[in-house]
Structures are given as C-alpha cells and as structure tokens.
C-alpha cells in the first residue's frame, strides 16, 4: 500500500482485466471426508428416467436440464451429491451432503468460474502483470482473488440444492 501524507493512491497498474476469474476450493475427496469423516463412500450415479425427471421438476419447481447425477452413498446411509450450476456469468461446482434422516448436512463450493465473454479484451493485461511481478512476484491465480465488490448471488446454488433434494427423495433410505 502506497501511503503519502495519509492519502490513498492506487497503484499505477490500476485497471487489471480478469476476463475469466476461476477459483478452486476443496477437492471432491476433501469434501467427502469433511462431510462423512471415517466413512466409506460408494459411487452410485443416478440416471433419471423421463417420469422421474418430471417428478423432480414438479417437486422442486425448477427445470432439470440433464438426467445424469454424480452421487455417492455413505456407509452410514447418507448421500453425497456432486453438481454444477450455471449463472449469468458463472459456473459453480458444489457438493451437497445429506444426512441418513434426509436433512441437509452441508453444502460446500468446490469450484467457481466467472467469465464475461471469455475473451481477453485487453491483450496488454498480461504484460502489465509481468512488469509488476518483477518487484512483487504474483501468482496469477492467487493474486486475482480478494475482490471487494464482487456481488455474487448464491441463488443458483440454493436452487441446485433444492433440485438435488427432490432427487434425493427418490432414493432409497
């Protein structure tokens, strides 16, 4: 932070274009161990038939755009879902854990990708980065991260969880 007489000055490399902002959080395995510690998880993928798809759409009030879902059964009887939702500018992969009694155990975001067209509009942005990195080494993925004002809505994930819970209702307890 450059401070001079107590005033805040922005660094000359002010406008930093980040056309595709991507963050990876916990891995699938980490999320599974976190939600079902010490348990064995067995892959039990689901393919909804047309009747089931309509049931889920009715129960959740949401469209079910695809029929294949990645699901694991925990030795305790709980379930672990892996799913992705698409927002206006973002693709979010998340995990849902469901308790044996059918209540939500936890939701964990595993991957967040944001794109405004996916193109690097300003070809010079990478060069600016390199110049800055001479004095202050930057790791691209690590430094374009703490963004204030990134007003992100979790509504798509909330919807996704509701859809998965409607699918969960079709599964054996």
């Amino acid at each position, binding site marked *: 932070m450059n401070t001079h007489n107590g005033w805040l000055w922005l660094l000359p490399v002010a406008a*930093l274009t980040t*056309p595709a902002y991507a963050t990876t959080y916990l891995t699938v395995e980490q999320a599974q161990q976190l939600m079902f510690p010490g348990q064995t998880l067995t892959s039990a993928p689901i393919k909804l038939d047309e009747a089931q798809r309509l049931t889920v759409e009715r129960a959740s009030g949401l469209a079910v755009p695809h029929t294949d879902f990645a699901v694991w059964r925990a030795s305790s009887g709980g379930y672990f879902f892996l799913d992705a939702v698409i927002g206006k500018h973002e693709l979010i992969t998340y995990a849902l854990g469901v308790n044996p009694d059918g209540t939500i155990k936890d939701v964990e975001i595993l991957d967040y990708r944001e794109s405004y067209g996916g193109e690097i509009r300003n070809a010079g942005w990478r060069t600016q980065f390199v110049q800055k990195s001479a004095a202050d080494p930057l790791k691209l993925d690590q430094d374009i*991260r703490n963004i204030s*004002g990134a007003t992100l809505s979790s509504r798509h994930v909330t919807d996704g969880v509701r859809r998965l819970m409607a699918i969960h209702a079709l599964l054996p307890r």
Partner: protein
Amino acid sequence: MRSFRASLRRAKPLLGTFVEIEASAALSPAALLGATEAAYGAVREIHALMSFHEPGSDVSRLNRYAHANPVTVDRRTWTVLERAARFSRASAGAFDVTVAPHLVAWGFLPRPPNAPPPDPLATYEVIELLDDDRVRFRVPAWIDLGGIAKGYAVDAACAVLRDHGILDYIVNAGGDLAVGECPSPVHVRDPANPQSSFCLGRLAGVAVATSGAYFAAREAACPGRHPIVEPADGVPARDLGSVTVIAADAITADALTKVVAVGGAASESIVTAFGATLLRLPAVGPAGRPASRAGLSAPPARLPTQACDA
C-alpha cells in the same frame, strides 16, 4: 518434532452470497479444517439470528413483537443493533435499519408474516436497547440488518480463526472482506467494467467493503432514506458507480459503504470520523472510458501493513 504448515481455501453459500475463507497456519490440515468449520459455524449462527426471512430469527421476532413488549434477543443481535445505532446517529439517519418496509414495497424482501404494519414515521430512533439483551420498539417497525450483519459475520468468523491461533487469513463474504495480519493483495471490482478490478495493494489487519449505488434512481421516491441492497441477481450494475470503505473491522466497512452511498459528500467526514478510508469508483470515466485514477477520491486514513512470517 515435526512442524506443520497447512493452507486451506473454502467457500460456502451463506448470507445470500458465497463466504470464502482462506487460512494458513502452523497447524495440522485437520486442525485447520476444524478451525474453518468453527468459523463457518459462527457465520451460520449469525445468519440464523439476523435473517429477515427466517420466521424464528431475532429480527423476525422483533418485527412481530417488539412494539408490544420488550423482546430478549441473542447478545450478538443486541450488539449489532447497538453498533447500527451508532452509525445511524453519526450519519443523522442515512444509515437506518428500519428501512425494511421500503425493501418490502420494492419487492426485495418478502412481507414479514404476522408482523403488524409498520408506523410510516418509524426511524432508528424508535428502537430502544434495554439491559439484559432486551429490545423494544416505541412504535411498530420493520428492521432489516442486511446492511450490517454481513460485516459483523465476517468479523465473527475472523475472531474464531484468531481464537484458533490463525493470524494469516482472509474472510470474504461476497465482497465484504477482512484480511488477517499477513499482507494480502486486495482488489476492488470496477463498476464500469465488471471483468476488471483495481488493486488496492497489499493490505493487512483491515476490512474492505464495497457497495454499488444501485438504487440512486429511487432516491426521488424516498428522499434521504434509500438503502443499498444487492439486487437479487447479484449482477454488478454497469452504469452506476461504487463505494469502497477500508476500515478496522468489517462491520464498520459494511455500514459505512451504505452511509456514503446514500449520504453524499457530507458522509466523507463520517467515514474519517470512524478512522476509515473511502474510495469512490465512478461508473464511467472521462470520455466513456472505465474509471481512472483521476476519478478517485480518498480521505486521509491509516492503512496498517506489516511483515509476516513466511
């Protein structure tokens, strides 16, 4: 003896946004994971206490009953109301938690079930903070803590991490973020260009919050009382500017962004009085270009940065 150094980065959907916690400490990976679980637990509890939507939250109980009898709330809810009152007094009502009826009228919040119609003249001054964590409203009022609870939740998560001996952390609740004792680069999104961001530099021991002036157009309808709320879709407004406040804690940063966004130029002295720093980003810079350095303003402030162990 073996020494650990673990790093972790997680995100969860909470508070209507994504709450990201990044932490690094001389702990085992399991202990670090446990500490972040505890931090998320604190956020979840605050969400449950202060949600406008949850019928059993303190906020919902206050909106239903506090005009009739004092309502005993959680100490944390009382604390947030007490902090909110300070921001309201300092800003002569530019910050006001009793704006919920406007948000309901505009469709940003659902009508609270079983709550009496609010007195149209109710302001923050009708809220009485009594001893033993009790709260009373002098007249029926609807409060919403959306302009301050997110910052408080970020501070609470940070406190949990520090209690676990973690000093190197960042907690970011959809743009309201707090940095621990290790300097970390912090960016502010350019309201003119959502794919761009401005680098504030490497910050430590501070909190940063940003609000867009999304509702400037509504000011005429409710002079002096229009709050700042994230639109339901969360898409950054493209043709309105943003306000960023850097403060000692996230609750201050969160509340002051609202003060500035509704309070205009006079509010800059309020920001200074709270020891905070203000950064305005215009929506469109000269000749339609994105915001440039020339368009920025900032009052004097102290921005602590310090060295950190590797």
